[in-house]
Structures are given as structure tokens and as C-alpha cells.
């Protein structure tokens, strides 16, 4: 087996869907877990705006319902990340990645500001378009090799078309675009600091994992 992430430490089998931990995926899994716990326990930052031309400032209020929704979305995002890190099935991986995409849209879209919502909508369109190459890639891998299990594919018995790998990367790029939208100035006008971090972190993690998957196949 092509051990790109180190020797597998532990296998968890659900029928033919095998979850496995290598030193590489275990590290990413723990990182996702730690940040999910941070999101769970942290309180949102209250953004301070300074009134122009005076000494006054005011803190933005975040309504409880908005806070709850964004926290829920961040935790769901963390769970989806953890799933994407350790799954040993190509189709499950694509599903978890698209779940990360949906959660990122949700984290951003809960902010009741027109500009933020516009950015979230555009990102959502890209994420939705990203599912097309991603699912196509998984389907092509299943059709050409007859299996979706990464452990089987890693044996390198059958060649996977380069097009399928390229489409997989393209799809993950589409889903993981959140930080680029978060980099828009409008995003940082959005209050609620710990939650936006989850967008960036999840994208970083799924990019690291997809690199491993591509090298493994």
C-alpha cells in the first residue's frame, strides 16, 4: 500500500466503508476536534464601532437566535470536517466536503446584513457548482475501478483516469472557496469572530486532506 500519510494506526469498519486513522489524518482530525470544542465553549466577540468625529463608541448586539444558529452551523461544520478527515470512502469524502460547503454558507449567511448576504449567496452558487465536478469524479472513479474504497484504490492495481482526479480537486476547490469570500472586506464587518474562523479552518483541512487523497489514489 502507498502509505502517503504514514502507516494506518486504526481501522473502524462499517461493512465495506472503512474509517481509518493514519498519523496524518489523525492530526487533522484532532485539529478539527479542538476547534469544534473552542467554538462550542467560546462566546462571540461583540464588535465595537467608533462614532466618527466624537468619543462615543457602540458595541453591536448579536441576537441570541443568530448566535445559536451560527454556533450550530460552526459545530456542524466541525463535525463534517472530522468526517472528511478520516473517511476511507471516496464518495463519503465528497459528501462530507459538500456538507462543509453548506455549513460555511450557513455560518456566513446568518448575518443580517445585505452585503454579507450577497457574498454568501455568490459563494453558495460556487459551492453548488462545485458539487458537479466532485460527484462526477467520484462516479467516474467508481465506474472505472469498480470500488470507492481508498484502501482498495491505494493498492494501485487499476489506473484511475487523470481526469477524475482533476475533477475531484476542482470540486473541492469550489467547495472550499469560503476564505476567499471571507477575505472580502464585507465579511469582516460581520460580527461574531469565532465562527468565521471555522470557514477558514475547514477549507484548510479539506485542502490538506484532498492532497492526501489524490496522492493516495
Amino acid at each position, binding site marked *: 500500500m502507498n502509505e502517503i500519510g504514514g502507516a494506518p494506526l486504526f481501522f473502524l469498519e*462499517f*461493512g465495506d466503508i472503512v474509517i481509518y486513522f493514519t498519523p496524518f489524518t489523525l492530526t487533522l482530525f484532532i485539529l478539527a476536534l479542538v476547534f469544534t470544542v473552542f467554538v462550542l465553549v467560546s462566546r462571540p466577540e461583540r464588535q465595537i464601532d467608533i462614532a466618527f468625529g466624537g468619543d462615543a463608541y457602540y458595541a453591536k448586539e448579536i441576537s441570541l437566535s443568530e448566535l445559536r444558529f451560527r454556533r450550530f452551523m460552526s459545530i456542524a461544520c466541525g463535525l463534517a470536517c472530522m468526517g472528511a478527515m478520516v473517511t476511507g470512502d471516496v*464518495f463519503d469524502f465528497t*459528501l462530507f466536503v*459538500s*456538507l462543509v*460547503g*453548506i455549513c460555511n*454558507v*450557513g455560518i456566513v*449567511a446568518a448575518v*443580517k446584513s*445585505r452585503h454579507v*448576504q*450577497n457574498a*454568501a*449567496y455568490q459563494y*453558495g*452558487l460556487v*459551492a*453548488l*457548482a462545485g*458539487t*458537479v*465536478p466532485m*460527484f*462526477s469524479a*467520484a*462516479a*467516474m472513479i*467508481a*465506474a472505472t475501478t469498480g470500488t470507492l474504497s481508498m484502501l482498495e484504490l491505494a493498492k494501485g492495481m487499476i489506473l484511475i483516469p487523470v481526469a477524475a482526479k482533476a475533477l475531484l480537486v476542482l470540486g473541492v476547490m469550489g467547495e472550499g472557496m469560503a476564505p476567499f469570500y471571507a477575505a472580502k472586506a464585507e465579511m469582516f464587518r460581520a460580527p461574531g469572530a469565532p465562527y468565521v474562523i471555522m470557514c477558514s479552518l475547514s477549507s484548510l483541512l479539506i485542502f490538506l486532506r484532498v492532497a492526501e487523497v489524490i496522492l493516495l489514489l
Partner: protein
Amino acid sequence: MWNEYSIGLAAAFACALIGFLALVWERDDLHKLLLIDLVETASLAVIALIGTDLSEALILPGLVVGIAELLALSQIYLTKEGYQHHPVTRLNIEVMMRSPAPVIISAILVVYGIILSGFTGGGIAGLGIVFLLMSRSFSGDFHALEMASGISWALWVAAFFVFMFAPQWWYMALMGAAIGILLKVIAKMSLVGAMWGEPE
């Protein structure tokens, strides 16, 4: 080189490409959303090209993820554009008042769906109930329906655990899963039908 699979793949990707080209030129946000949904269908076609039982099992989650993103984005679109509650009266397809046609059509669909069973049957029976609820302005309490949906889903999951841990009981698990998914899809689709419009 050009076997059936390659031709099908080429056709599906050609469809996706046409959709993406339309997306490049489209400026209206709502139309963009609709076009992306269209492109999504091409990816389902690629999954369907696997042509085994596996493709059916993969289309289902693919479709669910697509619909979830579509629902989330349409909700964002509504808030973004500031659209508020639009009261919708009942779907007016009847020529005569109080004609029994919707009841008969729904009954046929429900019975046929129960005969089919499984996910497809659930879809068809659910469609029948959606149709009935849409053509009658029905307002009621949906707690029972939601509970039925939840319980049947639990039945479905329990059946899968039987598959995993006690494979010798596979026939019972198969029946449980089929009935569970039938009830679940019927209940879920009826809820969708009831959400069509609020009574004025």
C-alpha cells in the same frame, strides 16, 4: 475507446458545459440559481452512468445534498432581496368547484405508491398527498405527520443496524427498511405539500 460509457460521459459533460456557458452570460441572481440546479442534474447523470445498483445508492445522497444547498440558497436569496411573506391561496386547477378529481387522482397515486413500496413508492404516494393538499386549502396540525416521519426514519435506521450486526435476519430488515422509507418519504412530501401556502 468509444464504448457506451464514454459516449454517455461525453454527452453528460456536454450538457454540463452548456449549462456553465449559460451561467457565464447570465447576470440575474435568481436565474443563476436555476441554471446551477440544471447543471446539477448533469452530475446526477454522470452518477447514473455507473449503471449498477450502486449508482442508485449514490444518486440519493447526491440529490439530497443538491436540494439542501438549493433550499439554503433560495432562503438566502429571499432574505437578501428582502422578500417577505407572500400569501398563496390554493392551487386552482379545478374547473368546477369541489370536484372529486383530486381525491381520485391522489387515491390512485397513493395505492400505486404503496404497491411499489420503497423510496420510489414513497415518492409517488407522497406526490399524491402533495397534490391533494395543494388543491384543497388544507390547514391543520402536522405534529402527527412529523412524528410519523420521525418514527419511520428510526425504523429505517434500525433496519440498517440489523443488516450490519445480524445479517441472518436480512429479510426482516429489508421489509423494515422498505416500509420505513415508504412512510418517511410519504410524510416528508406531504409536509412539503402543506408548506405550499399559508391560509389567508
